[in-house]
């Protein structure tokens, strides 16, 4: 027979159990994968040039690296307000206009806090305001306009040159 606090304690435990179950269900819904690749040019038997992306292990300064992020929804519910964030890697410079992501709005940040489009970001220099340059971007953000359905994959990519 339960009395007073005991009953509440049980209820509390049950309530907690339900919450963590809910949390466990949402955590890990999206599995995020990132890969860095470089373009490899090959000439086939016909003498035609083809390029393909291969993993970038060791890279030489001056080479362009393609970063691809994929978000897979492994849950039975859709994910809303999906936003991918990627800092521009150290020792690398973002290639202007290279950020792509079907169904996303792309914005950038110079400080990791305030985000805007390429046209919105400005810098103060010598007492005047000017548009920020692509090589000054520190972060890139892709905001998915629609929810990510169960089993669906979101895709984001950008390129940066090794300094």
């Amino acid at each position, binding site marked *: 027979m339960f009395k007073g606090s005991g009953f509440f304690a049980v209820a509390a435990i049950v309530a907690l159990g339900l919450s963590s179950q*809910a*949390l466990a*269900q*949402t*955590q*890990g*819904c*999206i*599995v*995020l*994968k*990132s*890969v*860095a690749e470089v373009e490899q040019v090959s000439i086939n038997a016909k003498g035609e040039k083809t390029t393909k992306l291969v993993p*970038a*292990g*060791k*890279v*030489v*300064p*001056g080479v362009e*690296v393609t*970063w691809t*992020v994929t*978000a897979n929804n492994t*849950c039975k*519910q*859709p*994910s*809303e*307000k*999906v*936003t*991918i*964030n*990627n*800092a521009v*890697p*150290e*020792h*690398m410079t973002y290639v202007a206009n290279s950020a792509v992501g079907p169904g996303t709005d792309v914005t950038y940040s110079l400080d990791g806090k305030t985000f805007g489009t390429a046209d919105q970001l400005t810098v103060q220099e010598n007492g005047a305001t000017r548009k920020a340059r692509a090589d000054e971007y520190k972060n890139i953000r892709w905001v998915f306009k629609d929810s*990510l359905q169960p089993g669906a994959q979101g895709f*984001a990519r950008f390129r940066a040159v*090794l*300094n």
Partner: protein
Amino acid sequence: MQSLRILGAASVLALAFGLGSNKAHAVGAPAGTVINNTAEVSYTVGSVSTTTSSNLVTVTVAEILDVTVTAQTPTVGVAAGETQRVARYRVTNTGNGSETFRLVMNSVIAGDQFDPVPSATPIYFDSDATPGLSAGDTPYVVGSNDPVLSADGFVIVLVVNDIPASVVDTNIGFTRLTADARTGTGAPGTTFAGAGNGISGAVDAVVGTTGADSAADTSYSVSGVTLTANKTQAVVDQFGGAQPVPGARINYSIVINVTGSGTATNAVFTDNIPANTTFVPGTLRLNATVLSDGADADAGDYTATAPARVRVALGSLTTASGPQTVTFAVTIN
């Protein structure tokens, strides 16, 4: 006997110093640098918001092999027969990792008029505090003290040649310094797996746009101003003839011609009064200007004490000065 002396003559030499204008810069990220990157995604399921990270992606920076040699003294003015003439170069590691370089000099280069002759020790490092070749500079011995340069590091190298005696004014002779990376050279993009030096150990080394070797030439330019004197005489005797008899007068005319490039500074013409003759006072002239016999402010003077001679200061002469004519007369004793 006449003589032509050039006091303190100096040819104007075309020396061009690369004062900081020949600097080359290395590429950025140091070899061996490890670049880590992780992406993040934030999303909402129902009422619960979550942020999760991707896997860690690592990219390692390979060593790029690049070198640049620049001539610090692109043209060096020289004279025939000179020895130990120095050409100065700057060798810069324009790659992104520490690298050893081999140096080679060569004075047999096509397109010039003479081959400079390499000194017995043809390459030095300008290693002491005195710029240029001096006693404290270290000789380069290939394979023994090949320079090791960090990214953006450089060394000043001196190449030493002698000038053949047979060269003439305006001749040019090239001397070349070549540097190449010991890890490897070749077409840009050639990879030497694991052969590079990174900040955290061995990395791949990849040949950069310079091919990991570089050369620069210096021109030894022969430029010497030369004065030649051409003396003629005319005998006028006291009877209206031209017999060289005692009492007859000899009129001397000396034309000094200037050839070559540069300036002969403080040129002085001196001519001894011939034996058995006596200088005629007041006959000394330079380009038709009468010069007083005494040593005074004008350009000429006559000294009677043995060896008796006339002397005329010609000033600084270039080919633009034109021929200078000195005249004076003596009588036969």
